């Protein structure tokens, strides 16, 4: 390891532990390491990396998907999706757990935010499940884990970040489509676990829905679900680019939330605009400073060094993939998703493509790993949010969540070692280069 890299890693870790915002940890680490490299006007070089890092039309999709997600979240779609899911899967034993998982999958996809899924879906489903005799910590565990599936089912902002971090090797459309089957697989895995636990504990049976109810809930939920169809269909048919699709999604969500569902008032719009702006800039500052840090890492040949180090341990593709999975799982437990994707994609991508793993496939593996990290202490946004909403504590939820982790890890291993699960859909749509 060269001296600038020692400075970079040490300063980054120290600042991170001291709760300096991650974006600034990366900025300062990049700044100090360029300073010791010594052959560049340091401050200007970092400022330049930040400015050019966020100067990209395709990144515009991020604020727009955040915006449409906020509109849909405020627009009362959670309740409509719950009604709809109830008709589909509510009748089985443990029905409400299935309803919870299915709603999280749909809502997470539409809103693009796991945290929003926990608060919107969990805020309604956890109390309801408590009342129907499901155990509180089980309900929280279901919500927390299911909420992450929406990050795999498109549209998904973290996938746009990944596409950017690969330097455009992976198109947004390709990674979007690649996430569909793995996302459904995780959802089914969680349902399997929830079903077994529900049968064992004799949790309640949901009521059977009548045909009229079914039709009614279908038509009430379909406009919300159409958002996914418009975005994916529009991109796949070449009607618009991913960025344009996201702007159309904003228009659609706006019309739906304000005029059709009438749950967002006009005077709430400025607040939503601001929230969108703030969330966007948090992500973008991360992107900007991570570009500076990645530049240092690349200039000092870090990916090559790590690659050589890993390859000296083994050159078996499957063992390597397993080790990378372990590293990413560990990273996910203490780091949020966006910074983790931005930091580790440029490091691991050359390694995995070197051993013959497709960049699109690797994106799915990485996001699945980090999804598990969202539900684990010490840093797990979904877990802590869910515990707050479920009015319980992390220590009480952990025993209940363990089996759901098993489901997630098994799905992760399946997706790691069966690349066609991720690649078949984008490949058959002609999205892979």
């Amino acid at each position, binding site marked *: 390891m060269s001296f600038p890299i020692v400075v970079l890693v040490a300063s980054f870790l120290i600042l991170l532990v001291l709760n300096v915002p991650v*974006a600034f940890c990366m900025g300062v680490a990049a700044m100090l390491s360029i300073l010791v490299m010594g052959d560049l006007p340091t401050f200007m*070089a970092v*400022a330049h990396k930040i400015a050019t890092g966020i100067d990209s039309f395709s990144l515009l999709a991020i604020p727009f998907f955040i915006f449409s997600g906020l509109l849909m979240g405020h627009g009362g779609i959670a309740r409509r999706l719950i009604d709809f899911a109830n008709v589909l899967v509510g009748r089985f034993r443990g029905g409400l757990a299935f309803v919870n998982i299915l709603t999280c999958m749909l809502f997470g996809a539409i809103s693009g935010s796991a945290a929003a899924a926990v608060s919107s879906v969990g805020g309604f489903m956890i109390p309801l499940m408590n009342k129907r005799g499901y155990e509180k910590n089980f309900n929280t565990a279901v919500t927390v884990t299911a909420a992450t599936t929406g990050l795999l089912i498109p549209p998904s902002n973290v996938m746009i970040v990944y596409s950017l971090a690969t330097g455009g090797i992976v198109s947004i459309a390709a990674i979007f489509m690649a996430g569909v089957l793995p996302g459904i697989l995780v959802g089914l895995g969680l349902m399997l676990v929830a079903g077994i636990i529900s049968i064992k504990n004799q949790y309640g049976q949901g009521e059977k829905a009548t045909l009229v109810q079914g039709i009614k809930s279908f038509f009430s939920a379909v406009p919300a679900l159409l958002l996914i169809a418009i975005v994916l269909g529009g991109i796949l048919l070449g009607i618009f680019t991913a*960025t344009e699709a996201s702007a159309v999604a904003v228009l659609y969500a706006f019309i739906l939330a304000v005029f059709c569902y009438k749950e967002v008032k006009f005077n709430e719009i400025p607040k939503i605009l601001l929230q969108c702006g703030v969330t966007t*800039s948090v992500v973008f500052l991360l992107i900007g400073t991570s570009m500076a840090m990645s530049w240092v890492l690349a200039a000092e040949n870090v990916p090559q060094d790590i690659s050589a180090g890993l390859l000296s341990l083994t050159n078996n593709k499957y063992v390597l993939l397993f080790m990378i999975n372990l590293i990413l799982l560990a990273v996910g437990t203490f780091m949020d998703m966006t910074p983790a994707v931005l930091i580790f994609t440029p490091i691991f991508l050359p390694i995995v493509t070197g051993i013959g793993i497709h960049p699109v496939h690797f994106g799915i593996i990485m996001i699945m790993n980090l999804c598990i990290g969202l539900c684990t202490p010490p840093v797990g946004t979904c877990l802590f949010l869910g515990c707050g909403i479920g009015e319980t504590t992390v220590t009480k939820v952990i025993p209940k969540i363990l089996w759901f982790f098993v489901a997630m890890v098994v799905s992760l291993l399946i997706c790691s070692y069966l690349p066609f699960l991720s690649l078949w859909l984008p490949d058959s749509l002609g999205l892979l280069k």
Partner: protein
Amino acid sequence: MTKLKNILDKCLEVLVMVSVAVLVIDVLWQVATRYGSKFSPWIKSFGSEGQFAAFLVKYTEGIQPSHWTDELATFLLIWVALLGSAVALGRGAHLGIDYFVGKLDDKVRIRTELFAFAVVALFSLLVMVFGGIGLVARTFELKQVSVSLNMPMGYVYLAVPISGAFLVLYSLIGFFERVSSAKQGGAA
């Protein structure tokens, strides 16, 4: 100081809100003009001579797919993202890892918070303000202009030092808020 922060907040918030709204309209305009330009040939292809068709053709014939919208959008995005990050700092919205610090007792924790604000202020001053000014000066010198709007890129990168200044201001406000709350906490 709270008063200053409130005024700052309001100004920046309004700027961010308006820019996000303009961004959405801008990109929608891009989609609309691209399909609008195909509209009149499409109507004509039916060969109808009716008044309504003539009316539609008349008003859509001149539409050209717009070329400046994506450039405007990326410029606005840079400004929104950087100005917004100052607002986000004021609201404590930037992601950090509070796990280790949360384990410390209050006194030490407040010191680490002060340290974090100092780091942010220093970085913003050195890189964003000084580095940013250098960047802007150099792009003006090199006379870099954007392709379709012909705008000097210096104006775009101006977002870096300006938002840097706001970041410095917000981190100082945050720093002194902690100091005074620590004093009050000590008295209580």
